[in-house]
């Protein structure tokens, strides 16, 4: 194993990775703080009066559970800020495996060295997966710190760990998708455009599946397997986590193996 190459790939992720971990940790901490400021009893009053909120259909968990601190805090994992930061990082790094450095003229320097393409690919992907784990861990640590700091005795940070794992599963699949478009590509901007298009379509399908009567649409989008808030309220959260996260990781694995296969066999043209 070429440790220098792994170290190079690790440091390439470090700047944006550290910033994203920081943002996620701070955001989760602030979310817990904001939860501590909300009197959840009022929400309970709404529920007892039978008033239904218009956006209830889009919520991943019943309102009765939202009215509890654990329920409210679990919603952080589906917050747009969290999903956006993690997805943006995954797409940015995934598109920078092949088409990015090829476009910039960096790849031909690295591959002119006695380094096999597979070794380079493994170093890029391996380090990125660890950084994706750090992103999810950063969010979880922010939550755990908030729970401890604001003395939520009824919330268990450990009970929220399956949500973090599910987020890691989603980010892995998004990363693999970006790598899948990057491996045969030549220009990073095209990779980004293609991934963004797929991502938006998948997201729309998820919203439709939740809000429309066509619940079966959830099967057509990988977001259907992203239910971090829901799973922590189940009787066996770790089992539900496995049921939802393992297919995400397996899908990512298949995409990454295919991408590696394409990359090893493709031509590397001179940068335009």
């Amino acid at each position: 194993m070429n440790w220098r190459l792994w170290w190079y790939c690790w440091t390439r992720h470090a700047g944006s990775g550290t910033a994203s971990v920081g943002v996620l940790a701070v955001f989760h901490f602030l979310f817990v703080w904001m939860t501590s400021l909300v009197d959840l009893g009022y929400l309970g009053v709404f529920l007892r009066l039978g008033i239904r909120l218009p956006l209830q259909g889009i919520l991943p968990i019943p309102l009765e559970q939202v009215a509890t601190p654990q329920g409210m805090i679990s919603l952080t994992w589906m917050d747009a800020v969290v999903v956006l930061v993690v997805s943006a990082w995954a797409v940015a790094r995934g598109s920078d495996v092949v088409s990015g450095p090829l476009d910039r003229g960096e790849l031909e320097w690295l591959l002119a060295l006695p380094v096999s393409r597979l070794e380079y690919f493994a170093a890029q992907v391996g380090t990125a997966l660890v950084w994706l784990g750090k992103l999810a861990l950063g969010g979880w640590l922010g939550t755990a710190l908030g729970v401890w700091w604001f003395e939520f005795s009824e919330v268990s940070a450990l009970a929220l760990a399956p949500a973090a794992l599910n987020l890691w599963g989603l980010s892995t699949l998004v990363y693999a998708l970006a790598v899948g478009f990057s491996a045969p590509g030549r220009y990073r901007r095209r990779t980004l455009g293609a991934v963004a298009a797929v991502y938006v379509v998948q997201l729309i399908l998820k919203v439709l599946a939740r809000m429309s009567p066509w619940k079966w649409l959830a099967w057509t989008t990988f977001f259907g397997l992203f239910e971090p808030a829901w799973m922590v309220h189940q009787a066996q959260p770790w089992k539900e986590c496995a049921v939802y996260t393992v297919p995400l990781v397996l899908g990512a694995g298949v995409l990454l193996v295919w991408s590696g296969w394409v990359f090893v066999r493709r031509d590397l043209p001179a940068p335009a």
Partner: protein
Amino acid sequence: MTPTPIACADKLSKFYGPTRAVEDCTLEVYPGEVLGLLGPNGAGKTTLLRLWMGFLRPSGGQARVQGLDCWTQRRQVHQRLAYLPGEVRLFGPMTGKAVLELLSGLHPRGRLSLALHLAQMWQLDLTVRVDRASSGMRQKLALAYVCSVDVPLVLLDEPTSSLDPDARAEVLQYVRHLRDQGRAVVFSSHVLSEVERVSDRVAILHQGRLRCVETVERLRRRRLLVVRLQEEAFPDRLPEQVRLVRQEPGCWHLEVPQVDRQVLNWLAQWPVQHLEVSSLGLEELYHRVVEDRKR
């Protein structure tokens, strides 16, 4: 005894759909020589170098370095060569020193101290970020690394394209130094005078095909004769070593490997009024090869 080539292309071809970037190219590179690679834009020079690098899968034939297949044994091949791409971009956010440290550290035969020495010799400021350096500085930085690696084969794709005249002279001198160390250098360029100055052999590519391979020494010996005649006459048969380049009324342009007794005896048969003898040179050969093919 014929020396063993360090790199060879054996009926090598690379097609992109109907475009034939390189076709049926057979060429050998020997240790201790500089092979100049010439050709107009799109002739296939860069494609040929990238086939040797294993960046492109050949459509036909084989590229080899020290007997290793450049496509299937890329990693082993890369232990034996260093490559300077045509357009040097390197790693934008890194400083010059960090780039030399990275590349020299990743190559088992990289020599950081020599790379730093070359950078100092070529007056490079290694504290400047690569994306803020001029194209000439980037090229010098890349050359400092490529020339420092202890490998038997060096592939240079237009190594002087962004350099000022002084830097060009220094680089050419260093290329000759590499050759004197027994290494093989493939030197692709558009600058004919440079190639003629530094190369031991030249190969001319045109429209993907190898049109001519010639040693510079033989090239220097070749002569162009402009023969003006007292009357219009047409040779029905030329001696074996004489080639008719162009014929105008009362004037022949002939190419000969050297002006010897046989050539002079043959000329004596004709009513020669005026005879000019000049060295053929690479430029004449290049234009002749390219123009002939255009016709």
